[in-house]
């Protein structure tokens, strides 16, 4: 019973007073930013990275992970109560959740969202625990060529799951990779694209890029849109769903959990895709004669996406922990967090730092439990927070961004960088160029160059090495298939529909 031994090791780490405390802080912060529209997990984790310096690595990762899955809980609260998804992954929850609230069943919707999330969270924690060790063992057999091809597959998959134009998304990835190359080349020591600026020879800090685009850039877009917020006045009602609700939702939660777990593992996947797909699936399965109809307050339309986004948030740790390859922008930041603490993400983490690995996994379950127990009574408080107007919120976010980025290296230069990337992020948003693929490319760029270099050095410059190695060839064939599928008109139409649900 290796699994049990490992889990007990993990719980031993996760259940120390300090780590429970940090999991709690992470969950509360996550819920907070999940409730507040206009600030997401990417910006928050970027802001808090520097403050985790002083913490032991396990505690730091536990807290940051808590922010990500905590945000999934918080996002559903505002989606249901005020029809305002605090997180993009809760957009579909608002469809039926808000209708239920208008019918006076807000409590049941909130309760079911929390229960579904908890079931999904527990299941996906087990899944991470069961699949991570064999996968990381397999990953140790990967050579540089295999890694390179795997990253290509990951990036292509990220494109498939991005919204909008495929070509634009690929171009954004390439842009991210080249930005990642700025700075000193490890092999030759040449400072690339640094324009004789000493600060740039260390490269552009990815915290600065993430905060600029996702922190300041988002503020600019929100300021432009102005504010339209409905103040919630209705009663929340009884939080415990009825027996009938449980009967209706059981299937939806199961399907949401399974689908979400699967989509979380995929490169480019995660909470967002999981919630959208499971809502579509549930709607299709219920058919036209569902009662009440979907979009009119069907509890299955709340249970399924909320289970799925939590499951997806958690299983997206699998590629990070086993392969060292982040499947989405939040995980890209986790790579940064691990590097800050001198942990090289990858298959060796599980053997070199078993405490950290299993502690993190166990903490996810602990965190989920805390979220259910703590958040339901706290709902009133979260709703009060919604009354903070955006005109006061955004100066606060700016202060945290600026101080946060400064403390990464104690250089003023990084503050300039976020100013620049704030403007860049605004331009991207206006031109409908999605920024998440850029961040992935930015993190993977240097790794890709290194592996490409090594692979071609070993093969004496022959590119056929990528096709001769079975693992690498499989990855490349999969990438190609994905691209071909994307190019087919029927699929393209389907994909466009998924992202503009109703």
């Amino acid at each position, binding site marked *: 019973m290796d699994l049990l031994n490992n889990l007990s090791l993990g719980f031993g780490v996760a259940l120390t007073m300090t780590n429970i405390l940090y999991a709690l802080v992470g969950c509360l912060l996550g819920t907070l930013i999940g409730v507040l529209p206009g600030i997401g997990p990417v910006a928050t984790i970027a802001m808090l990275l520097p*403050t985790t310096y002083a913490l032991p690595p396990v505690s730091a990762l536990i807290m940051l992970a808590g922010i990500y899955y905590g945000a999934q809980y918080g996002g559903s609260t505002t989606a249901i109560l005020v029809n305002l998804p605090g997180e993009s992954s809760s957009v579909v929850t608002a469809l039926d959740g808000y209708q239920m609230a208008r019918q006076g069943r807000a409590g049941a919707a909130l309760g079911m969202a929390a229960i579904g999330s908890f079931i999904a969270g527990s299941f996906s924690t087990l899944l991470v625990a069961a699949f991570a060790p064999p996968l990381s063992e397999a990953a140790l057999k990967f050579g540089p060529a295999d890694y390179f091809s795997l990253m290509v597959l990951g990036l292509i998959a990220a494109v498939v799951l991005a919204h909008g*134009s495929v*070509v*634009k998304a*690929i*171009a954004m990835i*390439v*842009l991210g*990779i*080249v930005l990642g*190359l700025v700075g000193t*080349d490890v*092999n*030759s020591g*040449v400072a*690339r*694209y640094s324009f004789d600026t000493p600060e740039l020879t260390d490269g552009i800090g990815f915290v600065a890029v993430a905060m600029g685009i996702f922190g*300041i850039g988002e*503020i*600019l877009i929100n*300021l*432009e849109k*102005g*504010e339209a917020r409905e103040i919630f006045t209705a009663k929340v009602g009884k939080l415990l769903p009825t027996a009938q609700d449980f009967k209706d939702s059981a299937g939806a939660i199961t399907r949401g959990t399974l689908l979400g777990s699967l989509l979380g593992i995929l490169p480019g996947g995660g909470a967002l895709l999981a919630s959208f797909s499971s809502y579509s699936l549930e709607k299709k399965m219920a058919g036209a004669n569902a009662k009440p109809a979907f979009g009119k307050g069907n509890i299955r339309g709340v249970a399924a996406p909320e289970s799925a986004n939590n499951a997806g948030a958690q299983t997206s740790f699998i590629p990070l922990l086993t392969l060292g390859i982040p499947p989405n922008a939040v995980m890209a930041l986790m790579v940064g967090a691990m590097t800050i603490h001198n942990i090289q993400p990858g298959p060796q983490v599980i053997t070199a730092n078993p405490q950290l690995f299993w502690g993190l996994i166990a903490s996810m379950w602990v965190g989920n439990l805390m979220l259910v127990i703590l958040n339901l009574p706290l709902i009133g408080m979260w709703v009060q927070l919604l009354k903070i107007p*955006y*005109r*006061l919120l*955004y*100066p*606060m976010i*700016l*202060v945290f961004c*600026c*101080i946060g980025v*400064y*403390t990464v290296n*104690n250089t*003023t230069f990084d*503050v*300039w960088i*976020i*100013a620049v990337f*704030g*403007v860049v992020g*605004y*331009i991207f948003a*206006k*031109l*409908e*160029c999605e920024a998440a693929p850029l961040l992935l490319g930015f993190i993977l760029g240097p790794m890709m*160059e290194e592996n*490409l*270099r090594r692979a*071609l*050095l070993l*093969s*004496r*410059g*022959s*590119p056929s090495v990528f096709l001769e190695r079975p693992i690498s060839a499989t990855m490349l064939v999969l990438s190609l298939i994905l691209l071909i599928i994307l190019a087919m008109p029927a699929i393209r139409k389907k994909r466009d529909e998924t992202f503009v649900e109703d």
Partner: protein
Amino acid sequence: MNSFFKNKDLLAGLMFIVIGVVFFVGAYNYQMGTAARMGPGYFPRILGGVMAVLGVIVAGIGLKNQAQWAATEGIGWTWKPVIILTVAVVLFGAALQPLGMVIAIILLTIISGIAAHDKNYRELAIITAIMCLFCAAVFVWGLKLQMKLFPWS
């Protein structure tokens, strides 16, 4: 002519072309090397080229749909908040080391607050005071980060 500025794909494509060319040409400053022994210029040159080509495709798609873009309302840039926030952040950076955190925060919140549609200077002053106290407590006294609070400290 004016209607080309409504075309988001065309503009995005041009942006990718320009950046791609800059990286492609810039790569000539560094050694190219061979595939087996890549120099520092090898990977950036390939990527710069790829990005320029992608830019041409994006721009081409934009031109093909120019008629539809011309019928849209336009992109609607609002530069005022962009300029205000950028100035605020830059001043924060400039003030932090010589003048200390308190003055830097005051500059940042007050200036950035101007960008709101519904600004309220009394509230802004309160928020500024709260942020100064909070950041001093958390970052300077709590986490003991290397930052001075006032010009004289």
